[in-house]
């Protein structure tokens, strides 16, 4: 998809360029943190959903990335909604 730069429904890792190259992980379908890559751990995989235009967890597919408190916080987390405003 040209607008967002993501392939639709294709799982991906978000890899930090900090020295350890940790990946983003949805910790318990809630908060997001960087952790060591672990093979086939679905909590570390995300995909772009073209219908809702959100990035969702491959492990908890109804959870999308959002900015907490309707964007009023700095924290990034996963939330069970199709109304995420991150994108």
């Amino acid at each position, binding site marked *: 998809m040209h607008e967002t*730069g*993501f*392939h639709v429904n*294709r*799982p*991906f*890792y*978000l*890899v*930090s*360029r*900090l*020295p*350890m*190259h*940790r990946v*983003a992980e949805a*910790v318990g379908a809630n*908060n*997001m*943190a*960087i*952790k*060591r*890559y672990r*093979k086939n751990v679905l909590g570390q*995989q995300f995909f772009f959903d073209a219908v809702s235009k959100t990035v969702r967890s*491959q492990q908890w597919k109804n959870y999308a990335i959002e*900015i907490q408190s309707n*964007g009023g916080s*700095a*924290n*990034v987390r996963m939330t069970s909604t199709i109304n995420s405003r*991150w*994108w």
Partner: protein
Amino acid sequence: MVVNEKGKVFDVLGGIDDENRNIQVYNKHGKVNQLWDIVYADEYPAEPIKGELNKDFGLYVERDFYISTAMSSHRYVDLINNRNMVIKSPNGRKTQKWYFHQQSLTIRTRYNNQSWDIKSAGKTTNMQIWSTNSGWF
């Protein structure tokens, strides 16, 4: 960068590369803690196995090595009291043998497989070995 419609970007809190460090959004400044690569799962590179080179770290996985000081004595890095790191003359003991451990991305001793560690959780200048906790880097 991963940027939203209001210009905020994904940011590792405080730029600290720790295990379980929180991800937040922040104003774009372009430093490395805001830089990410999207790697599709079907293209994620296989991790090097025993005997292979980890190119990111420049070390071979689980291949023993010694560390020799460039000072005139060329002593090896060793352990005293099986904990604290010092330099000693080569003696053939396991406390002088080190290897790179791929799963933890740490350097471990052959003596008991503990990893390099900065004493007191990085708050001192002293080097020792300790249970592997990914804290060294």
